[in-house]
């Protein structure tokens, strides 16, 4: 009589969920609670992810059907990203969005897993492995220091000038802003607001040298091309939350990195192109944020009547009140001081150009360029050239007239 066959052990059908940081995939999310729920809803399988970000669920007893899967990282937040996020101590290294997936199980195998909020996670199902890349809202950066008692009075808008990957790798360790707005409009916070982030470098605005201690930095992920609507919506929402939280912020001082980035001697232009000519400052102006303009026709006699005297003329580099050199040529009949007036106007708006002296030198030239970049951006004017034609002159007066 042949020996009795040994009973086969029951098959354990398990699935592994690999949890990662959506923006920095080398970050494994350990300690996350993963729960599979049926329609009642009762938890039918659960596990915590290990140090490799892997959670294992036993699907053996589960019938075919739809389930939901809740993934809760050790630190989660579902609110809008802003000053309320990660403002306590101690602050964790990461905070993620909570994730809920709709899961279809057939034959003890996950066939599909779809996030209920597509912005909260990306999911890829491959056999017995489900990779879930979860959106972070807080990634602690080492690039910060104390504000040394300074009050937050400014918000600086940047663009990354590169793709997401290099930006994230840099922001974690080397330098970066307080907030980053991704191309899909999602915001990640990197540095607590009461700290200074390292985003502005050498900079000057309205007579203040070194803008990092007095500002909040916002980086918009954009290399070239137009900014998506989702980014404007996210930016405006974030600005609302920041200006509400910090009454010390002067809305006039919501400006671009190009407006403030200087060489050590105070010459602007170091950050020309940031956030660049594609950025629509008018979107902010419509909400009374940032520098504004007054309405009304320009006065043709501005700047000592230069534009009356020289048709289609432009004040420019090399012009000098003392030498009566205006528009690149000598005009003895112009007896006023248009260059000094121009310099005083730009300085009063906030631009760095040294002490106004009536000599249209390199600093004045770069101040004009950055003014033009700000107000010509978004299709409102031609390519900046650093020359003050009547259009630019009238604009300078208009902006100055709007300053509180």
């Amino acid at each position, binding site marked *: 009589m042949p020996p009795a066959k040994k009973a086969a052990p029951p098959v354990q059908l398990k699935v592994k969920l690999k949890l990662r940081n959506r923006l920095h995939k080398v970050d494994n999310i350990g300690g996350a609670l993963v729960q599979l729920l049926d329609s009642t809803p009762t938890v039918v399988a659960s596990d915590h992810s290990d140090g490799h970000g892997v959670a294992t669920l036993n699907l053996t007893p589960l019938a075919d059907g739809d389930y939901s899967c809740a993934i809760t990282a050790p630190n989660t937040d579902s609110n809008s990203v802003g000053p309320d996020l990660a403002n306590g101590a101690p602050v964790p290294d990461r905070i993620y969005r909570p994730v809920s997936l709709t899961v279809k199980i057939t034959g003890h195998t996950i066939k599909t897993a779809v996030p209920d909020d597509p912005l909260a996670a990306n999911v890829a199902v491959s056999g017995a492995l489900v990779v879930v890349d979860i959106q972070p809202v807080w990634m602690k950066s080492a690039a910060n220091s104390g504000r040394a008692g300074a009050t937050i009075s400014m918000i600086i808008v940047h663009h990354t*000038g590169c793709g997401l990957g*290099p930006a994230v790798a840099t922001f974690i360790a080397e*330098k970066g802003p307080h907030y980053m707005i991704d191309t899909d409009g999602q915001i990640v916070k990197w540095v607590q607001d009461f700290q200074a982030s390292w*985003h502005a*470098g050498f900079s000057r605005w309205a007579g203040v040298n070194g803008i990092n201690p007095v500002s909040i930095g916002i*980086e918009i992920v954009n290399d070239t091309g137009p900014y998506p609507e989702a980014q404007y919506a996210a930016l405006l929402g974030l600005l609302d939350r920041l200006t509400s939280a910090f009454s010390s912020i002067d809305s006039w001082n919501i400006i671009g990195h190009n407006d403030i980035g200087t060489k050590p001697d105070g010459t602007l232009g*170091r950050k*020309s192109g940031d956030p660049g000519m594609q950025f629509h400052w008018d979107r902010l102006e419509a909400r009374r944020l940032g520098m504004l303009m007054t309405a009304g026709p320009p006065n043709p006699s501005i700047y000592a009547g230069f534009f009356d005297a020289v048709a289609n003329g432009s004040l420019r580099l090399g012009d000098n009140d003392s030498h009566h050199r205006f528009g690149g040529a000598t005009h003895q009949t112009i007896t006023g001081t248009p260059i000094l007036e121009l310099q005083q106007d730009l300085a009063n708006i906030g631009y760095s150009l040294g002490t106004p002296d009536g000599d249209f030198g390199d600093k004045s030239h770069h101040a004009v360029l950055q003014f033009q970049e700000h107000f010509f951006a978004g299709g409102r004017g031609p390519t900046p050239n*650093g020359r003050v034609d009547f259009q630019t002159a009238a604009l300078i007066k208009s902006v100055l007239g709007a300053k509180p």
Partner: protein
Amino acid sequence: MRSLVIVVLSFTLSSGAMAHDRSGCSATDYAPESIKVLSEPSAKANSLQSIPRERTASLVRVDAFASRSGDWLKVRGDQYEGWVSARDVVCRVLPQEAQDTIAKQAAEVLQALKTANMPELRRSVHPVKGLRFSPYGTVDSKTDVVLTASQLSGALQDPTKRVWGADDGSGAPIRLTFVRYYHKFVYDRDFAQASQVRYNSEDEGRAWEQYPNAILVDYRLPETANLPQEHLRLVFEQHQGKWYLSGIIHDGWTI
């Protein structure tokens, strides 16, 4: 002996100094309405000719001369040949001519940088201006460190820490030894593998601000998954008939 030599020029040029939107000679914004052509590269030299500012496009560049009081260009007109101040006139070398002139020398310099061969590198250094090291794409003639050829010889072993500029994010001084600076702001990636090499391209906007009459050789490494695009620019300036290396611009990503 001071380890740092700063070549002081009586003036600097900026992008705005150039009414320059194409190759060839043109008047700067600083130029008077009548530009003097002199017999020597000196403000005290005899005037040979005066040319209207709008006629500078007809000039042909012949040579250049650098001095501590400023740069000079030797130009040829219809009926004269002489020197004009580089404050008044810019004469850019056309891209193809730039490549023909400098490609071999630039390749030798790049190889010297790749192998950190300072004796080889110093052979190319400008005898008057030295070699300016710019950690970022925006050249700063006031703060960027300039080393002479002789200072380069032992630079890799020099324990002296210099301030090479300011960090683009924190604004803190970049205080490093030469060797640390070299591996972070000169040859931090293998530019010999550059996907693109350009000669006197219009795209080197910020470099033209400081080096309007130079030949600029740009080595570009493209962006990768975790590394941003990066450029290394070699600056060659002419002096008494020869071209010398006068600047190394590390144009990496800045915040």
